[in-house]
Structures are given as C-alpha cells and as structure tokens.
C-alpha cells in the first residue's frame, strides 16, 4: 500500500522538487472537512498510480512557508508538480474521475 506520505518543509525539495516522476501534493489542514472528504480518494489514486506518480501530503498549519510559497490559500489544494515546478492544481473536493483526468494530463 502506498498511501500519500506526510512530509514537512525540510523534506519538500528532496521528495517533490527533484523527483523523476510527477508528484501530487495534498495541502491539507485541521478542521477541514473537504480535506477529510478527499483523503480516501487520494489514497485510492496513490494505489492506482503507484510507481507512476509520487503522492505526498503536507499540513499547512505546521508548514506555512511552503503553503505561502505555492500560493495555497484554500484547502484542500492538490498541486501536481512536474520537473520541480507546479504543473496544475485543484482546489476543493473533486470526485475520483475528475482527479484522474487531472493526473492523466500530467503523465
């Protein structure tokens, strides 16, 4: 099982920016029901795309600088990184088939 891995600012560069595959980062926070809603969907996608896309999640309350750097101001925000740069993003809950389409565009 490859559920999204929780990371912190210090590990962000290694995990996300220099990854060889595209990486999806789930920016979440406490008291965020849509973040809870989207979590099982992201977990399923992490299984489906195991090996093809890296999956991470980051708590913006504990890591505010990363949130600010990437202009995250609404939760949940999913950012897909490609070659170390943001490629696309999704704000708010979206069902699995829509997220799948977004991922496919990055591959």
């Amino acid at each position, binding site marked *: 099982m490859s559920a999204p891995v929780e990371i912190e600012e210090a590990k962000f560069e290694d995990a996300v920016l220099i990854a060889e595959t595209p990486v999806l980062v789930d920016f979440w926070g406490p008291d965020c029901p849509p973040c809870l809603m989207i979590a099982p969907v992201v977990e399923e996608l992490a299984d489906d795309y195991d090996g093809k896309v890296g999956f991470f999640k980051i708590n913006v309350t504990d890591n505010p600088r990363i949130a600010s750097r990437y202009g995250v101001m609404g939760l*949940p925000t999913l950012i897909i990184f490609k070659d170390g740069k943001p490629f696309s993003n999704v704000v*708010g809950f979206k*069902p699995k088939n829509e997220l799948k389409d977004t991922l496919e565009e990055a591959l």
Partner: protein
Amino acid sequence: MNELSKQYDIVIIGGGPAGLTAGLYTARARLKSLLIERGAIGGQILNTDWVENYPGFLEGISGIDLTEAMHKQAEKFGLETLLADVTGVKLADAQKTVETSGDSYTAQAVIIASGSERQKLGIPGEAEYTGKGVSYCATCDGAFFRDKPVVVVGGGNAAITEALELTKFASEISVIHRRDELRATKILQEKAFEEPKIKVLWDSVVDEISGDTFVQKVTVGNVKTDKKSTLDVAGVFMAVGFKPNTDYLKGAITLDKNNAIITDDKMATNVPGVFAVGDIRSNSIRQVISATGDGAVAAVNAEKYITGL
C-alpha cells in the same frame, strides 16, 4: 468479482446522515444493502464544527463524530460501503442499475441520498479566485485570513455560522445580504449582532471579485438604491445556498424548479422502487435530524415495496 456480488436488494447513493440511516434500517431488515459514497462518509454536516441541535446530545457533538458513529452502527448490522462516483442510473425497470466509474450495481430498490453542495454565485472573479481568496469553507480557510478583512456573502444559517467562525481570525467581517432581514435562526443572529467584528451590509449583493494574484477587493451593489461601492478585502466566503446533487440522474426522476427531487410522505419519487431522502428532497429543511428521519421512512417503505414485488 463475480456478477452475483454486484446484485443487491437496495443500493443507497450518498453517505451522509440520510443515506447512513437508510442503510442502518435496511441492513436490520436483512436486505442486502450497498451504500455508495464518492468521498468520505458524513455529508454536509462535516462542514459544521459543532452540532448543537441534534436531539439527544446535551452538550452537542461534532459532525465527524456523529456521522462516524452512524456509519459504524450501520456496518455493524451488515451495511456494505463502497467508495465510488455514481455516473449514471437506469431506474425505469424492475431491476435498477447504478453505474459508477468502476463497476455497475443492480438493485430492486434505490434510495437517493446524494445531498447538495454549496451554490456558486456565478459572478466575475469567483471561479478565478477560488482558492486564492474565494472560499466555501470558513473552518478550512479562516486561518489564511488572520488579521485581514473579509466578507461573507449570504444571510442564512451557513453564512452566519461562517461569519462567527471567522471572528477567530479575521480583523473584520462584512456580511453581505441582499435583503433587509437575515434568514438565519434567531439564536445565531443574536450571536452575530453581539460580535463587534461583524457588520451587515443590508440590501446588498457582490457584483464582482477582483485583485492581483489574490483577492484584493469586491464591488458591492445596493439592490434598492443601485449605488455601487468597493470594499478592500482579502477573503470572500460564499454561503448563498445549496444546489441539489441531481445532475447524474439525467432526467430519470421528476425534479422541482430548483432541481430537488419531489417525494411523497413515504419518500417515494415518481419512479416505482426509487426513494429520495435528505437535502436532495424538495422543500427539505436541511437538518441532520430530518435527514435521518427521511432515511428511516424510506427504508421501511423500500422494504414494503420489495416484499410486494
């Protein structure tokens, strides 16, 4: 997975309190029941920090704890749950089909509990600035607006609850409402009017949201005088109403002018064997307690329907 494992007595679409209660009752009636939910279990009540008006909980309870308990309870009696998006339905025949982006499932009766989601206002700047200052969830995003001015658009329970939540963070909160009276429950209105950070702009609508990379201001119009003004704000919280999630039904069931499902007092729709419960119903009062009540009524009547087939 063989074909038999996709056949059920009841398929329930949606895992909020209405669907969960329907599932609890149909499971206890020993009907083979499947509940399909596209995200996490719980529905719209997850967006409320604390539920004070669900009977039986003297100190209140969180939406998460309440719906998690409902889910575990229904599973205890045999309700099956599936994470999937329902993409279409075939309801006209005796054997109903519910299609998802994965497999399709058949059932003798279907209970529609897919609820509603926050209405979008549809004004310039709203889509562009979603996640960049425009928000539909104060508990999620309030912290991004610490010590900054924000507006809340709307005048009902959601709007006032959001405004009160935002007092923890924002420097000032302007509630923009198009009438001269709030629709929210009186006790919420009392709390809002006592709050020095909250002020209400009556008879007003937001015409446009604008800014740079992030929201910087809103243009407000008075519906009585037509006077326009601008407010410098960092955040716009939308709470203008709810839209029933009926798009995927694609005309299979009779809807009212707001696209909510018309039902009788048995929760029956115009299609035999198809029931609707919770926020998705026409004239729903949109409370957890009425959703759970609907769920039980539908389950009992779905059982009667199946037995009579």
